[in-house]
């Protein structure tokens, strides 16, 4: 919402300057987006006369001018075709900043001739697009005068951002009322005197909403003004509209635009001679079309409220008028429409057709229903004053919506909700200044909201009005009292698990990424997703159209992008949501990662190697162990999802159903689909599936039992069938003497000629920890025998000779 200071002063008697006004506007909730003070920008620009203009010695198109600035005579090189002796124009001295270009003017030589300033065009001043020639001012303009005052540019323009609840401030009068309530001046009366009509309005009007539950247009008023003379608007009106970025069209149209911004009251004017029969509001009919004032043709919807006559649709009511019946220079008889439309229907129509007019903007937020007639009278008055003519009587169809119920108001609620100490009397004063009627004698008080405040429904709305006018700077900053004892946790254990998993993976050398929650359907399908119920109806692009079933596809795509930037050894992880379905419980938090190419960059010690499954297995188990999962109780099965290499992947399970994690080499077909070079390893840990550590009874750790007796280590090599897993052998060995065996580890794996096809050799190291006394050779041998027997029984493995 834009307006100028002078415009505001027509509604507000105030001595406040532009800065104070801007500051107060923001302070009461009418946020100032910008203040354009051209007087400040054009401070050094003065009125000057060209004394002589001669041909530049070295350039055909340039002229050498001597300019009288009123104080001195300076030489200026000018390229404008209209530069001539006697012209009075705008002079910018060296050092001035040209508003149109933002360039600072310097004294310079142009084609070898000194130039000490510039004669300016309108576009250089930033006041219009006209750059055909330099500005020509009337001959009586005093030399040396400030350009902004000489040209009437000294009225600062203010642009405020109005929140959608304040349609009353989409007119200058409403803004003035708020400022007056906030103590910045006195609101001038906005009352409009009625214009006596001279004879009946020959244009009939009507409302046709038979069978429509909520009338789209509850009230329609109009009148005819005969014998007007339309044409260019007077200077003041044209300048006022241009100052806020509107184009002046003709006096009749400009008047409606002016009232729209002056009072927040949109109107429409028709060339009465182009109308046929009754002008009425009704819903659209199938097949109806409208060629609108914006030059576009719209297919009218049956839910649109239209204004129509016998010939058909004249306009989309409250949104846009039609080309055919608009006012032009030839208009002699004008019909003025002032109506009230249902805000919701206006919003729907505007949205449906994509029309963002000033009228829609106001009607959909809610204009003052009690200002239908005053708006019509104001327009009549201006038309008669500026275009002449004679007004008919007013015709009215329908009535404004019923007045709302009064609100019970307890002034102490202002104190309770805001902490600000505002006296009852001040509460009443503020409400009164904002146009509310207050019965302060009753308790609670009875308050009626003015008709221009559709946003006010209840007591808290009143509290808000009082608080904002009283000023949020008076809110007493008060610390929150302590609520809970220091032992109260702000982060729950599951939430902490999520946080820890990130730190564990980062400590393992992986980079945390945050990638989109959505991806392309093609990618989703590769990872078991892409269900219709997880597909967005209005995605921003096909690449971001469906909720991700796994974090891996986006991480792999990120790896691919980084590979494209020249990185090869990539270790990326993300901890975030993945979606198995649309229900809240279908969203789970995963800690997933990818590792590509080599473990480390090439190094002279040759320590680098290709990443393999056991790197990501280590990632998975490190996270699980650090989160306190019972890593010893998990089973690894070889049935990982389809995006993993079927022979080089595993699923970490706790019990038959609970999958904690998957890991493995990414399936070559997936890498092909992503155009990513292998090897690439990946893992996914479902953090929600990881059981929480048992709640502790005490912070004390279990007692440490460390023996003084030396542990004994024995090595065994077993020949087993290839199908036997290392895990089976290790578990069998550990179980063979559970009291003594404290550790079993695998230190060698051999498959090859020496053991024959279909077989492999697994060498394990078994550590025995004697508890009470040193083990004798005989006892050690006995344990060794039971290890061998145990492994043989469990796996069929033989001790390798």
């Amino acid at each position: 919402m834009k307006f100028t200071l002078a415009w505001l002063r027509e509604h507000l008697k105030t001595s406040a300057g532009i800065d104070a006004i801007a500051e107060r506007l923001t302070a009461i909730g009418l946020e100032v987006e910008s203040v354009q003070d051209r007087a400040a920008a054009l401070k050094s620009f003065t009125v000057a006369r060209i004394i002589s203009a001669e041909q530049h010695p070295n350039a055909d198109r340039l002229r050498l001018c001597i300019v009288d600035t009123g104080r001195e005579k300076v030489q200026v090189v000018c390229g404008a075709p209209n530069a001539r002796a006697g012209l009075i124009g705008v002079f910018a001295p060296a050092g001035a900043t040209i508003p149109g270009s933002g360039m600072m003017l310097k004294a310079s030589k142009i084609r070898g001739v000194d130039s000490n300033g510039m004669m300016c065009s309108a576009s250089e001043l930033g006041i219009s697009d006209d750059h055909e020639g330099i500005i020509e001012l009337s001959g009586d303009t005093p030399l040396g005068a400030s350009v902004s005052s000489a040209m009437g540019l000294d009225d600062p323009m203010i642009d405020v951002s109005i929140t959608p609840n304040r349609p009353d401030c989409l007119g200058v009068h409403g803004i003035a009322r708020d400022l007056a309530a906030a103590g910045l001046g006195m609101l001038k009366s906005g009352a409009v005197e009625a214009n006596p009509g001279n004879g009946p309005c020959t244009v009939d009007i009507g409302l046709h909403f038979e069978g429509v539950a909520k009338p789209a247009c509850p009230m329609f008023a109009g009148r005819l003004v005969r014998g007007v003379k339309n044409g260019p608007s007077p200077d003041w009106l044209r300048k006022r509209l241009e100052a806020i970025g509107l184009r002046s069209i003709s006096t009749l149209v400009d008047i409606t635009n002016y009232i729209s911004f002056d009072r927040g009251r949109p109107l429409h004017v028709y060339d009465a001679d182009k109308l046929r029969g009754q002008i009425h509001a009704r819903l659209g009919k199938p097949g109806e079309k409208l060629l609108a004032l914006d030059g576009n043709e719209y297919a009218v919807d049956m839910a649109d409220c239209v204004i129509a006559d016998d010939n058909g649709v004249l306009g989309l009511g409250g949104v846009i008028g039609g080309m055919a019946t608009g006012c032009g220079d030839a208009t002699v008889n004008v019909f003025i429409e002032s109506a009230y439309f249902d805000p919701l229907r206006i919003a729907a129509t505007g949205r449906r057709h994509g029309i963002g007019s000033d009228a829609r903007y106001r009607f959909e937020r809610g204009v003052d229903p009690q200002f239908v007639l005053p708006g019509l009278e104001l327009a009549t008055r201006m038309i008669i004053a500026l275009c002449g003519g004679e007004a008919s009587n007013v015709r009215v169809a329908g009535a404004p919506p019923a007045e709302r119920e009064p609100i019970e108001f307890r002034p102490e609620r202002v104190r309770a909700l805001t902490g600000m100490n505002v006296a009852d009397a001040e509460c009443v004063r503020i409400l009164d200044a904002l146009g509310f009627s207050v019965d302060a004698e009753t308790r609670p008080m009875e308050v009626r909201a003015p008709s221009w405040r559709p946003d006010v429904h209840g007591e808290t709305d009143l509290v808000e009005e009082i608080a904002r006018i009283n000023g949020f700077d008076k809110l007493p900053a008060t610390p929150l009292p302590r609520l809970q004892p220091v032992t109260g946790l702000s982060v729950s254990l599951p939430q902490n698990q999520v946080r820890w998993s990130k730190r564990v993976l980062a400590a393992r050398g992986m980079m945390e990424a945050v990638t989109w929650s959505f991806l392309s359907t093609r990618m989703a399908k590769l990872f078991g997703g892409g269900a219709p119920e997880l597909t967005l109806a209005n995605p921003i692009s096909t690449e971001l159209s469906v909720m991700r079933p796994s974090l891996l596809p986006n991480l792999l795509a990120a790896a691919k992008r980084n590979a494209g930037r020249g990185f090869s050894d990539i270790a990326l992880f993300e901890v975030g949501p993945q979606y198995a379905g649309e229900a809240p419980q279908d969203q789970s938090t995963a800690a997933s990662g990818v590792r590509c190419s080599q473990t480390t960059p090439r190094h002279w010690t040759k320590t680098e190697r290709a990443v393999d499954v056991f790197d990501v297995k280590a990632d998975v188990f490190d996270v699980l162990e650090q989160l306190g999962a019972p890593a010893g109780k998990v089973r690894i099965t070889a049935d990982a999802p389809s995006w993993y290499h079927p022979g080089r992947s595993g699923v970490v399970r706790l019990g038959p159903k609970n999958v904690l994690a998957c890991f493995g080499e990414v399936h070559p077909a997936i890498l092909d689909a992503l155009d990513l070079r292998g090897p690439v390893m990946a893992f996914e840990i479902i953090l929600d599936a990881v059981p929480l550590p048992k709640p502790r009874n005490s912070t004390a750790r279990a007692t440490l039992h460390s023996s003084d007796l030396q542990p004994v280590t024995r090595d065994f090599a077993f020949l087993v069938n290839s199908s036997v897993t290392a895990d089976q052998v290790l578990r069998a060995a550990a179980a063979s003497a559970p009291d003594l065996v404290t550790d079993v580890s695998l230190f060698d794996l051999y498959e090859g000629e020496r053991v024959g096809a279909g077989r492999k050799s697994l060498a394990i190291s078994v550590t025995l920890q004697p508890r009470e006394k040193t083990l004798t050779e005989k006892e050690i041998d006995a344990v060794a025998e039971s290890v061998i027997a145990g492994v043989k029984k469990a796996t069929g493995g033989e001790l390798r000779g």
Partner: protein
Amino acid sequence: MTDIEARAREMLNAVHSASDMNALESVRISVLGKKGVLTEMMKGLGAMSAEERKIMGPALNGAKDQLTAAIAARAQTLQAQALNIRLAQERIDISLPARPEIRGAIHPVSQVIDEVIAIFGDMGFSVAEGPDIESDFYNFTALNIPPEHPARQMHDTFYFNEKPDGERLLLRTHTSPVQIRSMEKTKPPLRIIAPGRTYRCDSDMTHTPMFHQVEGLVIDETAHMGHLKGCLTEFCKAFFEVDNVRMRFRPSHFPFTEPSAEVDIGCRRSGGELRIGEGEDWLEILGCGMVHPKVLQHGGIDPDKYQGFAFGMGIDRLAMLKYGIPDLRDFFEADLRWLRHYGFAALDIPSLPGGLSR
């Protein structure tokens, strides 16, 4: 006698001239070994007269001590020489690069969430969560945004396809639905923050279709806007790690709070750098207000008994302001160069007593 002295001198010379440990050992054996010269001479003592022995005994013993000491000394010298030679040979180029270890990093979004939790945790807030895929009720209706409210158009909402029963799920446009979910779950007093992913159908220089917000909610019988101001002032000081921060509460409008405010913090922009807390410029950082009675009702809380405030701010934006990160879109690019530059070490765990950042 002179013979012994001469022989001893000869033997000492041999010791001194032994050029390595092997040569020294040969000299020792030739002198002090079982058949060594001195050993043989000492064996002759037994056959000597007492007189003779009285002279020769000490002389030979003296020579033996002298030689033993000389051999030990020579051995030490030779060992030192040998070690020096070995050390000289073992010299390496210590400028060779050490074995590489790849360093991980925490994303600024995670770090800032941890910082925010540290600050509000200290004020007694606990962390609450809600799903990304929300119902119309939680995202709009319960927050006093009725179906035709213009705010629904202000939020450029991602919708899922309409279901046969007419329900249309959506991606939450803000973290505010967690307000309702928390009220439904917990009786007042209530103090929660809810960080999380949010989505809007928007993509340009300063908007991404996904971003992060943190919601705050306080409900009890007395919390008022002064508390809101106090709480947010404390937060801003702690978060931006400045002793003082200029703040401005501006009246604004949100359907789910009333009165509503937008909060600006003072800042200064000079030469591409942004200083928070000082300077004449204002920077909008969050929206807040007193929870609207209708929202309390939707959350199952009696607005005649309870009241409170809510606030919401952009985590990515906080990260950009605090750490001088220029472009929001880079947050979600997973560019290793960016992650390395703007990321945080795994051990940089923010805490109030230890400092939020280093």
